[in-house]
């Protein structure tokens, strides 16, 4: 196994595309190293992106934020601007693992590991995040909901590296929230995750985006759920419609972490709770 530390995303992309054997990018390593130790992957080449200048920084501009691929969960949690703008996303990122994991785990790693249960992914989708992808030849930008194609599968082609995640500056009176269900208080994988962002106008939901995690092979965007909220002040009827739309959008599996029935049911429950938090964060009064 060889280990490389490229100085730019482009160089990393070049290394990956030239490699004949199994090559893996290493961000925080909290997924990759676990798989390596369990013998699930046997890399010939590990390309560590953490030495790339500025890749561990969060850049703020008038348009929003650009979060480098090596920015850890704890750095996200300490960023006041990001926390004020997208508190739901920051909470989702900070739910990952424990203090030790937070020191390492990244949004990009969470996304590219392509687990259906990844916590930050629904929150990124709800916030309208985009992945900035660098290939050996060209760059492209892809909405986060288009990156994951199935469990363990992404849209990245050989040689492509995600350099950063970009987040828009939230419009006025926007709020987001992410809730997940786990049997314990931490160190668990989401049984259900629900992310909601809402924009209000005169106390009424004007725009909404709802994304679910852990209830289908990939995170799912639920337009029907968003429609249920738009035009409402989150009255009981709207919330019931929201819950029903979320439950209907679930296509989960029965496994050791939860049953189909349970996941479907709890998706609706959490959606109602997340919607209320997002609504209040947007300045709404319940």
């Amino acid at each position, binding site marked *: 196994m060889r280990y490389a530390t490229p100085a730019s995303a482009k160089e990393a992309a070049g290394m990956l595309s030239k490699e004949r054997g199994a090559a893996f990018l290493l961000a925080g390593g909290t997924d990759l190293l676990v798989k390596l130790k369990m013998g699930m992957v046997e890399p010939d080449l590990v390309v560590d992106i953490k030495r790339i200048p500025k890749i561990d920084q969060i850049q703020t501009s008038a348009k929003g934020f650009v979060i480098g691929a090596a920015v850890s969960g704890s750095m996200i949690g300490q960023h006041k601007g990001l926390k004020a703008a997208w508190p739901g996303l920051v909470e989702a990122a900070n739910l990952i693992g424990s203090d030790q994991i937070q020191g390492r785990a990244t949004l990009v790693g969470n996304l590219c590991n392509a687990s259906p249960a990844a916590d930050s992914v629904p929150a990124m989708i709800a916030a309208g995040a985009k992945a900035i992808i660098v290939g050996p030849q060209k760059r492209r930008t892809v909405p986060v909901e288009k990156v994951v194609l199935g469990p363990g599968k992404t849209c990245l082609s050989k040689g492509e590296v995600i350099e950063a995640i970009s987040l828009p500056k939230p419009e006025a009176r926007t709020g987001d929230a992410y809730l997940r269900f786990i049997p*314990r208080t931490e160190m668990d994988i989401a049984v259900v995750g629900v992310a909601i962002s809402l924009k209000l106008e005169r106390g009424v939901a004007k725009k909404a985006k709802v994304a679910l995690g852990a209830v289908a092979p990939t995170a799912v965007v639920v337009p029907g759920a968003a429609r249920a909220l738009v035009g409402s002040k989150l009255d009981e009827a709207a919330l019931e419609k929201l819950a029903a739309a979320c439950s209907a959008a679930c296509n989960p599996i029965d496994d050791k972490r939860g049953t189909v029935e*349970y996941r479907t049911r*709890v998706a609706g429950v959490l959606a109602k709770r997340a919607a209320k938090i997002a609504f209040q964060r947007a300045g709404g009064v319940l």
Partner: protein
Amino acid sequence: MGHDQKYVDKKNYEVVGTRFNRPDGIDKVTGKARYGADASAPGQLVGRVLRSPHAHASILKINVGKAEKLPGVKAIITSADLPDLTGQDQGLADILENCMARGRALYDGHAVAAVAAVDEQTAAKALKLIDVKYKKLPHVTDVDAAMCESAPVIHDRIITRGVEPKPTKPSNIAARTQMGHGDVEAGFAEADVVIEKSYKTEQTHQGYIEPHACLASVNPDGTAELWVTTQGHFVFRNVCASLLGLDIAKLKVTSSEIGGGFGGKTHVWVEPVALALSRKANRPVKLVMGRDEVFRATGPTSSTSIDVKMGAKKDGTITAAVAEMRYQGGAFPGNWAMLGCMTAFACYDIKNNQSIGWDVVVNRPKVAAYRAPSAPMAAFAVESTIDELAKEVGIAPIDMRLKNVAREGTLAPYGPTYGPIGIEHTLKAVKDHPHMRAKLKKNQGRGVACGFWFNIGGQTCTDLNIGVDGTVNLTLGTVDVGGSRSSMAMIAAEELGIPYEQVRANIADTTSLGHNDMTEGSRGTFSSGMATVFAARDAIGVLKQRAAKMWGITEEHVIWENGQAIATGDSHGNLPPLSLKEIAAKSGRTGGPIAGHNEVVADGAGMGFASHICDVEVDPETGRSTIIRYTVVQDAGKAINPDYVEGQFQGGATQGIGWALNEEYIYGDDGRLQNPGFLDYRIPVCSDLPFIDTQILEVPNPLHPYGIRGVGETSIVPPLAAVGNAIANATGVRMSHAPMSPPRVLAAIDALEYAS
């Protein structure tokens, strides 16, 4: 009991009952402590085990040719390298077969072959090159299913014991046990209310953080050494020597520091394999299990299925109680259901009671002891039923328990008549506890439950050697799992009348001391404590002799008080006392080193009883339960070091709560374990629990010089039922299936709503 009992009434302890840090504490928190995986030897190889991916399969052929040719591979073994030397001892034969499959893999994870190689990578590669041809056989993992006529029979040799007439055909039922007394039919006829319920509990693992690990070295001359994480190195020595055909005295076993055992390290799993690998390779072999191997192939506790029927009069008197309990022991027979029967009704004085146990085999790993083995499941069923009975009768559950509580003189369902016991004391303390009066909010409920564990004594051997500077080496043979070195040093200091700091307690290897039984059955402090008292008294005898010699007087004029020899009698009263230090300094000229020794079969372990209070909040929309307050009240007999007694109370409660809420082995339809890791086998994390409050009661055990009872196990017995009772009070649903995980609780809440 022939032992000197004067200390039972001793009220003024100097050292015992105070709090000292454990001597091993700093090494443990700084990482210096050496655990099972922390030993190495020159030329050592890495051992790895190949395990069956099938729940049940014939092993048609094992081809090791390719693996053997891999450079760096030094030895490969299969069952052929562990010939059966067990003679007529079926228990030992089971252990051997469990360590390495013999023609048949009996569960997912059963060892099939093992490799010793120069490094980890080579060993891992070699495992992949071993070609095993399996023929899959039908399997069964559920205890009820295994008892059915149609179930695949796992062992042709098993004919159910305890059934008349003796069955003619083999089955998965290893034994039937029955016990109790009185006339249960008559008892039920007397009852105004009868409750009958069935329960299930899933399989749980002890979940110790340190995986099994050892370093084995066997020499061609038949001598051998084993460094190992274990709860009992003397027992490991005897078992390994028998399995490998070694002389007991030539196998030196050293116990490492232990990162948790809870019963799981009372049994050998990989140690005989490591020894066999070393014997074949003629080099030391270090073998460390991975977490998945620990889950798949060491000994969790039984899963169970239990029916309970209890009847009571309107005044709350329980007139009859019957339990029928089915426990699986994994792929080999155990006596787990029998232990369930013995403990089920042990907290109560029930005139008519009967317990029937069925010990069953299934295609799962061989069950081992887990902290008060079998008692928590029985208590879950019985203590839940008592709450239902109390509700039906209209009495507070705590009063129902007090009304029927066992006392000194009560005939225990498993035979003996109780001496002084503490269950009533714990219930009264619970009733008076401020926790019982704390207000509950919406969706919150409170539950109380009781628990019992026998505790055991057994063989112990202890040395006490006094150095020329007056410091004392206390040499123990019971592995220190929970801080017993500190407790033993305190006892020695108490007896000798010297400060705690003057005593250093160590655990000896098997060549340095006589046989000691395991640290199990909460026996460590009870039995080693007894041997330490007697060893110290033995040393005091010597100290008095030496003082007499130094003074030139006769021994009968010397007494021992406050750490010094005092000359008594008219003619010697003016002699200044001689301290232990002064006598020790002169020992070279008064007869040589000063030592005390004791070997004993410690009889008279005092039973341990506890009552717990649990407050829970249930989220009615997700079924998730949060423990918001928890109190343990337990009788310790005498708490030598209250810190560690409280630690045992809290640890047991935590494990019980984990079992109550989320811990379970999940098997797929293919008979393979789905969650062999801490991610999906959910033990509680720190943030899951409130601080667990404790109250130590001391009802002395008259059969111990200090009144000690074991305290390590009872605390895991009540939590399943305490949590279940709290959930019932919070939601109105009675959970009959543990763990009471969110999906199960939500389904039960739904069923209740649907019904009403």
